[in-house]
Every structure is written in structure tokens, then in C-alpha cells.
């Protein structure tokens, strides 16, 4: 099979460029078309090689010029790598030219020629195997780019272009010195012969190899000698930014990839060091950046730094190097070009101005796609690449590198998600809407779609990625496409979909997984029913809600750690979008996401450590981790605790849950938090369950759970906002669960699981009801409500049953948990933790009473005299859940007995004995049903007595009371609701100081201050930038010599 030789890329481009020069400025339209044709031709050439080489039909091709073989001639190599890279470059060329259509046409044929030459030179530096040739075309590319920079009007572009010229001039000078000396020592300019000659062995040749590599590293704008690059990113046309970031950087990176071996592998480590400094430094400094294009510049430099790390580790990564590098590279390529292009459409300098993008919601989707691809979320290729990278690095003991990489990624996530937050939620009413040129959308859209497509095809190439279940994601995508339909249809589709899925999946699950899957799926279906209460289209809600559920079910179904982590991240992304839908959720969405990502990174590292010493990635590897087990289990636990909002990692929860929409709060509170619990359960089983080999960890976890319970409940007492009260309550309840599980005994787990089920039931009831009430009365503040029992009796009953169940007062189901905990505590001997927990329970009465009293009892406000009962669509799920609570309360053995049998698998010792309906533990007995019957019997008798002894009661009016000798007439002055626990506050205020929040704020502040001070090195003075370059070379040399 004969394919078009790559030499034609050069020949055709040059020929057309000359021809276009002849055309002159009159024929802009036709010359633009010719330009496109040339670029398309290049793309075609590359792509045919991609397919040819990829399918193995053809062999890699060497092109020799002038009929000589190297070293006497320049040769080009078209291998698989080259074909892919040139294809990437040429595609950006075509799309970039389309994107810049008006600019290229306006600036005449000259600009088009330069554009073409730029892409030709990028192709050549990828293909060429000749060092000097690479130098020449790097220079040609620089000149062409400098010519294109000036297309943008304004002084900034001019001065940035000049700095760019100056810096690249110096860098290529260095490169040239290196090239000429390596020629002197090896007698060749051909990369392959130089590598064979192994110049590092010769005295002095090392320096030249060093100079060459350092020059290419500098071309990649390594931190901190990269001020000139940042200025170009900021000042030039966004189309140029995209080319610089996607095409130019890709090509230069490939050059580094080609030549790195001329120094043997001696410089690899230093390349990694420079890479990590770039990655971390650049992302850190970007924290303070508000200019969107400069921000993207910082991010690009960071991503290239990451790629350099990968390159430096190629001996360790072995055959995975290409996969990892390609995953990161292609994600960055697509996402960064997309974002630069978007910035040209949105036309907002300041990232806060990007709120305007919301006026065209589909653009928000594009932006979200790019940002989530950049920070490595599934299903994008960067996710799989990062996974493989971390697995391999941990596997080879490079944990400190993993930490550094993940820290850098974290910083990147901070500013990217913050930016996205501004876009989703920022103030945009005063900003003028942007106009869209259709030709500018095409490239952006193509790249966004490409991210999904590439991700989909990249996934199977990880060792275990083949098994990822994409079916739920297809469903999400389908719902996304149907987003234009009204709520009623989408809601029905979503519910039906979830029912079918659950029906299909449940026979395959073991009991423990079934419990969680039931909470996720049944809970999901019930909360979705509440969605019928919404009118209109509710744009964007269903895809993200289902995305969260898709992630949740993926966690349950996961057979491998990769599947688990995949589901985990999908769930995180979905829940983030759900949470940030709330009106005032911008800061809370951000902090939720950051804690989630931080947690996910801890998880990732932990999963990596679990993999050490195993060939497989099966979930079984969590059992009995052998490599640094304390650290590994600790990391896993911390990762999961970030989701259960343990004290210290909880500050995102109150705002995130409190400000979310009415039916979202129960989703993220009653349901989502259980994902973290599921993870902890898996980890603890992994830690040996009843063997409890790492009892110190479990012990620490127990204390953490107890203190979390106390802190969460105490904070809940002092809330004025009903939903925040419930949110803090969730923190406390999850503390109980964590404590129960940490006990690592049968009873502890039984108590923990009993709380898992209970908390799901009553927290869903409470959040649904309060959410529905909030929808009716239009405020979260409890002191602005009151007396609503008269208007919403059904809601009142729901809350009453909910709070009794939560408080643990017999006969309702909450008592089961309390009883089990007391027994477990006594058995385990964790008396103080237990005492703290029970004290927390006492505190819980306070906020529960406050919730029901200030909302439903007391005085009805004038503006609520006509509110209606909460929506029927909320009542249906609420009363279904209440039925669950009642069944559990009346027949606790129906729940606890099977739970006990399940837990006995891991904790056979110390089970409960069941005699009929009576549970007997080592310390006592409890007959749930009988107690319930006794209480109900007494209640009915007393009620009948009261009814017999009261005559027809005279119904009095609201203000028929005397207070301070007067009959009050304003509810506001009579409803005791604001700051009701003033006395307790006076006694306990030191415990309510938000130390944790202050600590995280301080950390944030310190990081931002470091960023702000450090970035002042970018003084914007061209000479300073040159000095940076010179210093960078000197310091690198000294370090390498010294090291």
C-alpha cells in the first residue's frame, strides 16, 4: 500500500505559500480557501498514516532528502507517534484557521501565508530526525508565530511579541550552541546516530546534550523562566493562544520526547524535577490570576510540566509511558484549545465576567466539559492517564512524586472550578450578552465531542478499563439530549430508567452492597418523585442528577478499583452540578468540589498502594494491603471521610446541603453521604474486619466519629436556617455511623448499619418536608416561619415522626441504634467515646425541638396565613419513607436479624440472640415490638381518659393568650424562635468557634499569599525574562553537576 509521503506536507505547504504570495492581497477569499485546502491536505496525509500505521498495514516510513542517508542528509520519520502528533497539529491547524476566519481574511494573504508556514514548521519539527533541521524549523515557527501575534491589535500584543522574539532568540541560540558541539563530539546531527554514539560518555559532550535539552525545556515555557510565554498567551488572539497551547506545545513536547535520549537517561530525573516544579509552581501561581487567557496560559504551562514529569519517568513507566503521556496530552490539547477558543467567543477578560456564558447554556456545557477534562475527571482520557500514572508511580515507590503531582492537580482544580463556579453562578445581569459567529462554534463543538469520543476509546486501553459499565452514562447522555422536554416527561423517564436498572442489577449483588444500592436507587427514585412538583423544563437537572446516580451505582457494582474510582469521580461530578444549582451555592459548590477532589486524591493514592504487590486491580486487593498498610488504609479512610464530612473535612457540607434545591438536599444528604460510608465499610473489611489488625487506625477513627457527632450536633443547635440545621445534623449522624463501624465488633457494625438505614429514612423525610415547606414559604430562616401546623398538618406529622425517629426516643426506630450502641460501647470498652456520643444525642433533642417548634408550632405569621399544604409530589415519597420508619419501629427484628446475619460474615463473635421478638445481648435485652405495643397501649388509654374527661373543647384563636399582662397581636413579637438557646450558647460558646473553618481559610490564605508574592517575578519586563532564562540554565546546570 502506498501512502502519500510526509515530505509532501512540506512541499505542498511551501508551494502553496509561495503561490499565495503571488496572489497578493486582492484575492483574500480564494487565498483563504487555498489555505484551508492546504491545511486539510496536511491533515489528510497525517491521518492516512495514523490509520495505516495504527492498523499495521504499513511500516513506518523514513524519508531521506537529496538521496543520501544520514548523517549526510536530513531525514524525516513517519512513525505511529509522529503520525498521531502531526494529525493533532494539523487538525488544530484546520479548525484554528476556521476559527480565525475573519481575522485571517481581514489581515490579508500575508497573514495566511504565515499561518500556513507556522503549521508546516510544526510538522517538520515533529517529523525531522535532524537536530539542526529541528532548530531551523523551530526558528521558522517562532518567526511565523511572532508574525501572527501581531494580528491582535494593541500595545500588549506588540510588546508580548517582542518579548517572545527576544526570549526564543536567546533560547535557540543556546540550542544552536548545543547542536554544534554535539556535532563536534559525535560527528552527526541525526538524532538516532547521536543516541547510538551515546555522547554522554565523552567528556564535554554531556554539556552540549544538556544545552540542547534545556533549550527545548525552555521552549516549553518551564516555570519560572516563562514570563514571556504568559504574556503571549494573555495578549495574543485567542486563536493564537489555542495554537500555541495545543499545536506548538504539543510539537515541542514531542521534540523533547525524541531527543531526550541523547543524554542517555542521565537527565530524565532532572526533567521530571523541572516538570514538577513547573506543574506545581505554575498551578500555584495561577491561584491569584483573574485574567482568563493568562489563567489558561498558567494552566498550559502546568500541564506541559506534568508531561515532562511523565517523560522523565519513562523508564519507570515503561510501556505505559505513551499511554499516559497521550492521555494527558490529548486531554490538554482538546480542552485547552477549546477553552482558548471559548474565551474568544465570550470575550471576557476577567474570569468573573464569564458569568455571561450562562446566557447561552450550551456554552456552559462546553466549558464544563473542557474544565473537567483538564482536571482529570472521567470519562475523559486524562482520567485514565492520571490513574495509570499514579498506579505506576506508587507501584515503584515514588509516593512523594504522587503527592507533588496530586498537589499540583489540586491547585489546578481550585482555580478551574472556581472559574467554572463564576460561570455557573456569578452575577451576570449587567453584562452584555455575547454574539456568536457560527464558524467559531464549529471548532469548539468538535473538540468537546472529541473529548468524550477519545475518552471512550481510551478507556479500554487501561488494563482494567474494558469492564467499565457505560450503560448508565449512555442513559445520562440520552436524557441530556432530551433536555428540551418538560419536567414531567424527563422525570418519568428518569424514574423508569432507575427502576429498570435497579431491577436488573439487584440479583447480582451481595447483601451488603444491596443495602447501599437500595438506599441509592430506591432513595433516588423516591426523591425524583418529588421532582414532579417542579414546573417547566428544569434545564440541566436531570442529566446531572442521573450522573450522580450513575456514579453511585458504579461504586456498588465495581469489580475493580478502577471501576470504583471511575464511579466515585462520576458521582462527585454529578453531585457537584446538583449542589451548585442552588441559588447561593457558588462558594459551597466550590468547597464541596475541593474537598471531594482532595479526598479523591487520597483515595487514588490509597488504591495505588493497595495495588502494590498484586497483578490484578480487583476490589479484593483492598483486603490485607501489604505495602505501608497504615498509610494506605489511612489514606483510604481520609478519602472516604471527606464524603461523610467528618470533623475537619466537613466545612463544605452545611452550605452545600443547606443551599441546595428542595429535592436535591435529600439526595445529597440522605443518599450521597452513604457513598462515603460504603467506602469506609469496604476499607474496614479490608483491614481485616474482626481481626482488626490496624486497631490504632480504627481507634483514631472512633474518636473522630465521636467528636464529629458532638460538633455536628452542637453546631446544629445554633442554626437559624432550617436546612443548615439539618445539614449539621447529618454531620453528627454520620459521626455516629463512623464511630459504630470503627468499633470493629458485631454490635458496633449492627449499630452502624442500623443508623445507615435509619438516617437514610428520617433524613430524607426531614429534608424533603423542610424543603417543600421552604418552597411554600420562601425562606430558610426558621424564625420567619411558625405556626405552620395549621396550614400544613401533613408536613407537621412527617416532621414529628422524623424527629422522634432521629432522637432515638422509643418506640420509633432510632432507639434501635441507641440500644445497640450502648451495648457495643460497653462491650468494646470505649466508654468516653460512647459518653460523648450519648451527650450528642442529648444535644440533638435541642435542635430537633427547635426545628419542629419554630417552624410548625408557635405563632403563625401574617404572610403565611394562606400558604397551602406542601406539594402532593413531596408527600408521596415522604409518606412512603414514613411507612418504612413505622415498619422498622414496629418490627425491628425484620431489619436487624438479616443485618446481623450479614455482619456475622465478618464479625462472627458477639452476635445478638433473638428469642422471638426479643433481642438479647450480653448486657441486656430489648423487645422492640413489645415495647412499642406497651407504649402505644398506654398512649391510647391515656388519650381515651383525656377525651372522657374533657368536654367539647372550645377552640380559641391564635392570640388568645396573655403575655406580660396583654393579649399579643403581632406574631413576630410573640413567636419565640430567634436565638432560643441563648443560655446554652453563653455556656458553650467556646465549643462553637469555627476553628476548622478558620484553619482551612488560613491555609487558603497562605497559599494565595505565596502565589501573589511569587508571581511578582513576572515583572513584564522583557529583559527580566531573558535574565530568568539565563539564570534558569545556570541554576539547572549547577544542580545537575552538583546532584
Amino acid at each position: 500500500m502506498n501512502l502519500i509521503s510526509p515530505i509532501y506536507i512540506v512541499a505542498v505547504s511551501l508551494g502553496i505559500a509561495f503561490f499565495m504570495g503571488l496572489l497578493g492581497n486582492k484575492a483574500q477569499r480564494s487565498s483563504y480557501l487555498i489555505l484551508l485546502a492546504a491545511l486539510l491536505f496536511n491533515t489528510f496525509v497525517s491521518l492516512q498514516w495514523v490509520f495505516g500505521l495504527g492498523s499495521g498495514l504499513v511500516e513506518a516510513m523514513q524519508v531521506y532528502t537529496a538521496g543520501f542517508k544520514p548523517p549526510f542528509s536530513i531525514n524525516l520519520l513517519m512513525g505511529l507517534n509522529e503520525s498521531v502528533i502531526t494529525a493533532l497539529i494539523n487538525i488544530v491547524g484546520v479548525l484554528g484557521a476556521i476559527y480565525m476566519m475573519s481575522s485571517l481574511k481581514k489581515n490579508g494573504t500575508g497573514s495566511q501565508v504565515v499561518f500556513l508556514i507556522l503549521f508546516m514548521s510544526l510538522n517538520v519539527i515533529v517529523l525531522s530526525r535532524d537536530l539542526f533541521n529541528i532548530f531551523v524549523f523551530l526558528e521558522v515557527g517562532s518567526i511565523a508565530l511572532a508574525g501572527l501575534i501581531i494580528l491582535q491589535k494593541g500595545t500588549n500584543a506588540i510588546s508580548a511579541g517582542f518579548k517572545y522574539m527576544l526570549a526564543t532568540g536567546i533560547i535557540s541560540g543556546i540550542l544552536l550552541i548545543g547542536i554544534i558541539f554535539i556535532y563536534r563530539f559525535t560527528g552527526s546531527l541525526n538524532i538516532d546516530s547521536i543516541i547510538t554514539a551515546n555522547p554522554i560518555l565523552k567528556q564535554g559532550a554531556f554539556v552540549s546534550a544538556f544545552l540542547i535539552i534545556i533549550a527545548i525545556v525552555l521552549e516549553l515555557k518551564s516555570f519560572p523562566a516563562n514570563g514571556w510565554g504568559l504574556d503571549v498567551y494573555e495578549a495574543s488572539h485567542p486563536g493564537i493562544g489555542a495554537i500555541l497551547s495545543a499545536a506548538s506545545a504539543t510539537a515541542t513536547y514531542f521534540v523533547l520526547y525524541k531527543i531526550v535520549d541523547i543524554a542517555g537517561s542521565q537527565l530524565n530525573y532532572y526533567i521530571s524535577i523541572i516538570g514538577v516544579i513547573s506543574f506545581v509552581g505554575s498551578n500555584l501561581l495561577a491561584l491569584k490570576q483573574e485574567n482568563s487567557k493568562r489563567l489558561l496560559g498558567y494552566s498550559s504551562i502546568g500541564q506541559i510540566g506534568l508531561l515532562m514529569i511523565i517523560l522523565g519517568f519513562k523508564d519507570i513507566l515503561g510501556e505505559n509511558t505513551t499511554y499516559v503521556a497521550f492521555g494527558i496530552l490529548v486531554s490538554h490539547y482538546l480542552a485547552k484549545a477549546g477553552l482558548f477558543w471559548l474565551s474568544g467567543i465570550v470575550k471576557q477578560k476577567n474570569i468573573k465576567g464569564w458569568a455571561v456564558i450562562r446566557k447561552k447554556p450550551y456554552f456552559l456545557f462546553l466549558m464544563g466539559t473542557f474544565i473537567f477534562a483538564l482536571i482529570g475527571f472521567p470519562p475523559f482520557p486524562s482520567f485514565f492517564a492520571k490513574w495509570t500514572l499514579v498506579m505506576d508511580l506508587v507501584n515503584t515507590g515514588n509516593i512523594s512524586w504522587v503527592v507533588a503531582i496530586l498537589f499540583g492537580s489540586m491547585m489546578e482544580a481550585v482555580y478551574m472550578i472556581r472559574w467554572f463556579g463564576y460561570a455557573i453562578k456569578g452575577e451576570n445581569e449587567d453584562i452584555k450578552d455575547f454574539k456568536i459567529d457560527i464558524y467559531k462554534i464549529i471548532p469548539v463543538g468538535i473538540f468537546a465531542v472529541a473529548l468524550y469520543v477519545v475518552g471512550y476509546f481510551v478507556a479500554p486501553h487501561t488494563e482494567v478499563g474494558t469492564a467499565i459499565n457505560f450503560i448508565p452514562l449512555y442513559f445520562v447522555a440520552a436524557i441530556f439530549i432530551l433536555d428540551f422536554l418538560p419536567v414531567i416527561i424527563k422525570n418519568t423517564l428518569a424514574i423508569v430508567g432507575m427502576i429498570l436498572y435497579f431491577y436488573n442489577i439487584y440479583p447480582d449483588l451481595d447483601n451488603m452492597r444491596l443495602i447501599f444500592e437500595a438506599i441509592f436507587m430506591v432513595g433516588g427514585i423516591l426523591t425524583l418523585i418529588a421532582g414532579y412538583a417542579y414546573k417547566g423544563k428544569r434545564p440541566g437537572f436531570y442529566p446531572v442528577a442521573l450522573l450522580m446516580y450513575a456514579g453511585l451505582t458504579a461504586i456498588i457494582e465495581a469489580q475493580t478499583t478502577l471501576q470504583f474510582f471511575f464511579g466515585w469521580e462520576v458521582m462527585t461530578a454529578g453531585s457537584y452540578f446538583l449542589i451548585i444549582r442552588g441559588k447561593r451555592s457558588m462558594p459551597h459548590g466550590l468547597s464541596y468540589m475541593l474537598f471531594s477532589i482532595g479526598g479523591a486524591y487520597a483515595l487514588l493514592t490509597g488504591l495505588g498502594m493497595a495495588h502494590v504487590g498484586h497483578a490484578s486491580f480487583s476490589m479484593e486487593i483492598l483486603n490485607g494491603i501489604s505495602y505501608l498498610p497504615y498509610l494506605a488504609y489511612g489514606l483510604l479512610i481520609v478519602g472516604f471521610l471527606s464524603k461523610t464530612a467528618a470533623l475537619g473535612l466537613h466545612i463544605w457540607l452545611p452550605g452545600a446541603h443547606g443551599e441546595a434545591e428542595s429535592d436535591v438536599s435529600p439526595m445529597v444528604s440522605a443518599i450521597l453521604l452513604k457513598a462515603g460510608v460504603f467506602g469506609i465499610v469496604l476499607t474496614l473489611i479490608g483491614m481485616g474486619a474482626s481481626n482488626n489488625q490496624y486497631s490504632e487506625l480504627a481507634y483514631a477513627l472512633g474518636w473522630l466519629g465521636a467528636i464529629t457527632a458532638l460538633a455536628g450536633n452542637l453546631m446544629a443547635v445554633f442554626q437559624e436556617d432550617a436546612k443548615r440545621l439539618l445539614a449539621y445534623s447529618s454531620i453528627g449522624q454520620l459521626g455516629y455511623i463512623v464511630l459504630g463501624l470503627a468499633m470493629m465488633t458485631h454490635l458496633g457494625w449492627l449499630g452502624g448499619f442500623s443508623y445507615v438505614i435509619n438516617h437514610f429514612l428520617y433524613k430524607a423525610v426531614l429534608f424533603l418536608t423542610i424543603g417543600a415547606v421552604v418552597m411554600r414559604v420562601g425562606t430558610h430562616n426558621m424564625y420567619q416561619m411558625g405556626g405552620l401546623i395549621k396550614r400544613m398538618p401533613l408536613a407537621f406529622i412527617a416532621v414529628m415522626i422524623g424527629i422522634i425517629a432521629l432522637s432515638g426516643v422509643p418506640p420509633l426506630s432510632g432507639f434501635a441504634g441507641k440500644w445497640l450502641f450502648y451495648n457495643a460501647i460497653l462491650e468494646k470498652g470505649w466508654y468516653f467515646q460512647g459518653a460523648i456520643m450519648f451527650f450528642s444525642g442529648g444535644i440533638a433533642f435541642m435542635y430537633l425541638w427547635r426545628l419542629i417548634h419554630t417552624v410548625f408550632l408557635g405563632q403563625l405569621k401574617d404572610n403565611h396565613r394562606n400558604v397551602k399544604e406542601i406539594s402532593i409530589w413531596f408527600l408521596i415519597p415522604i409518606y412512603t419513607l414514613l411507612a418504612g420508619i413505622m415498619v422498622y419501629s414496629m418490627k425491628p427484628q425484620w431489619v436487624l436479624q438479616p443485618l446481623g446475619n450479614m455482619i456475622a460474615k465478618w464479625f462472627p463473635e458477639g452476635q445478638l440472640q433473638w428469642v422471638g421478638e426479643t433481642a438479647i445481648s450480653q448486657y441486656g435485652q430489648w423487645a422492640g415490638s413489645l415495647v412499642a405495643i406497651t407504649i402505644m397501649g398506654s398512649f391510647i388509654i391515656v388519650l381515651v381518659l383525656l377525651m372522657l374527661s374533657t368536654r367539647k373543647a372550645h377552640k380559641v384563636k391564635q392570640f388568645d393568650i396573655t403575655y406580660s399582662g396583654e393579649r399579643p397581636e403581632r406574631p413576630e413579637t410573640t413567636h419565640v424562635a430567634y436565638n432560643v438557646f441563648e443560655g446554652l450558647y453563653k455556656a458553650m460558646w467556646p465549643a462553637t468557634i469555627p476553628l476548622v473553618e478558620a484553619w482551612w481559610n488560613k491555609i487558603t490564605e497562605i497559599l494565595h499569599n505565596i502565589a501573589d508574592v511569587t508571581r511578582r517575578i513576572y515583572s513584564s519586563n522583557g529583559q527580566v525574562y531573558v535574565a530568568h532564562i539565563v539564570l534558569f540554565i545556570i541554576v539547572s546546570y549547577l544542580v545537575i553537576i552538583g546532584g
Partner: protein
Amino acid sequence: MTIYAKLGYTLLGLFIVLNWGFLMGATFRKIGARLAGRYGIPFYQPWLNLLKNISIRTTITHGIMYYIGPVFRLTGGVGLFLFMPMVFTGSPNGLWTNFSFEGDLILILYFQVFGMLGMALGAGQGGHPYSAMGIARGLAQHAAVELPLTLAFLSIAIQFDTFSVYKIVEAQQGGFENWILFTNPFAAATIILAMLGAMGHSPFNLVKAPNEILIGPATEFEGTYLGFMQSAGSILHVMEAVLFMNLVFGGANSWIELIVKTFLIYFWSVFVGMVFPRFKIEQSVTWFFKVPLLLGFLAIIIYSL
């Protein structure tokens, strides 16, 4: 023993407890009056009050919860009685053990709240500010009392490896030297101090803040409702005393012993109340976090070493 006999004994016991509660209440007020230099009420005043209350002609209601609240309260009192073994007869199913199923301490602890909760809900619907203030104070104080009390209960449970009140009483038989008062002095001391809060007399009576009229949760209740609540209050008072008697003072082998012991326990809090003026809520909360909490810690520490 047939279920009917059991029911009969239980009802009889309830009757005794109710009347004993009335009598103790009257005695308390009498002592208070004498200390203040007044003559005071006759000892039968509570019965008169009950009669008066349930025969008042008009009944008002603020709504369904207002109506149900006293029912909750009285059920709470009665339930506590049902779940408590009263007189130790050497068998967990003895004559005066009610429906206690060996008397589960945890059940008793949590069921205490049942009445409080119902009362809080009922009073809340009345819409009177004093009700809400009283409940808020009551809950705060309850939580503060609960902490040392829980520690002491745990200590006792550790001591005898059981949560069964019956077994705890059983273990204290055979002479006062076996009482927990002597075998576990720290727990006993904690309970004796924390009990003051549980009983709710001065200085820990800001919840009801009794002046000429009652200012607290019950403010808005009258007539039959008040009668129910007073009955419940009397029962609860006795039951609190019985609980502490069972836990610290060796339980009772007969009703006489029960009456003597509960009287002494009850009057410990009354006498303290006569001497010390009322605490503000923040004062009472911090008070429980000092000495009682410290003693509670000691009670646990001696068992976890």
C-alpha cells in the same frame, strides 16, 4: 401469674406511685413555706387541685397538638413506670416488676424524653412565649445533666456487666455495704449531684420558674390538661427517685422501703433547693460540666484502667 393479675398489680402500683407523688409534692411545698415563715398548704392540696382541675367547666384548645401534648406527657410518666422494676422480689417477673422486661436502663433513659417531647409539642402549639422559653431551657439543662449521668450509668453498667436494672438491683442485695453508693462511690456521687438537675428543683428550676404563677412549658395549660400534667409530674418525680434508688441505694425489697428511700432521695433535692437560689441556665449548664462531670470521668476511669 396471669396477664390479668399482672395488669392488676401494675395498676395498683401505679396508683400507689401517683398518690405518693402527690404527697411528696405537697410536703415539698409545705417545707418551702415553713422555711419562708409561712404556714403553707394542707398536705392534701394536690388531690384538691386535681379534683378542681378535672372538674373545671370550660375546656379550651389551641389545636390538636395542644390536646395531645398532655397525653404524651402522661404516657411518658406511665410508660416510665411500666418499664421500671419497682420492688425487688428475687425474680425478674415478680409482683411489682410491671412490664419492665428486666428493666432496660437504656430504654428508661430514652423514654424519659418521650413525655418531655410531647409536652414540648403541646405547649408549643399554645403559642405562649413562656412555653417556648421554658422548653428551650429545659432541653439545654437536660443535655447538660445527661452527660455526667450517662458516665455514671455507664460506670455502673461496666461494674456489673449489664444494662438490666433488675440485675443491678440484684447485685446490691445483702446489706447496705453492697450498695453502689459504697461499691462505686464515684458513680454514686455523680448521680447524687446530677440528680439535682434531673429533679428540677431549685437551683435548677429555671425551666418552670415557679413564682405566683408557673412560668414555663405548662403556662398555657389549664383544667383537665393541667390535671393530667400534674399527675404525670408526680409520677415522674417518684420514678426518677425510684431509678436512682435502684441504681445507687440498693433498690427496695418492699413498698415501705421504697417509700422511705424515695422520700430521702427526693428530699435531698428539695433541701438543696431550699438553700440555694435559682441558677440561670448558663450557670446550671456550666455547673454540671464541672464537679459532676469530673466525678463522672473518675467513675469511668477507675474501670478502664
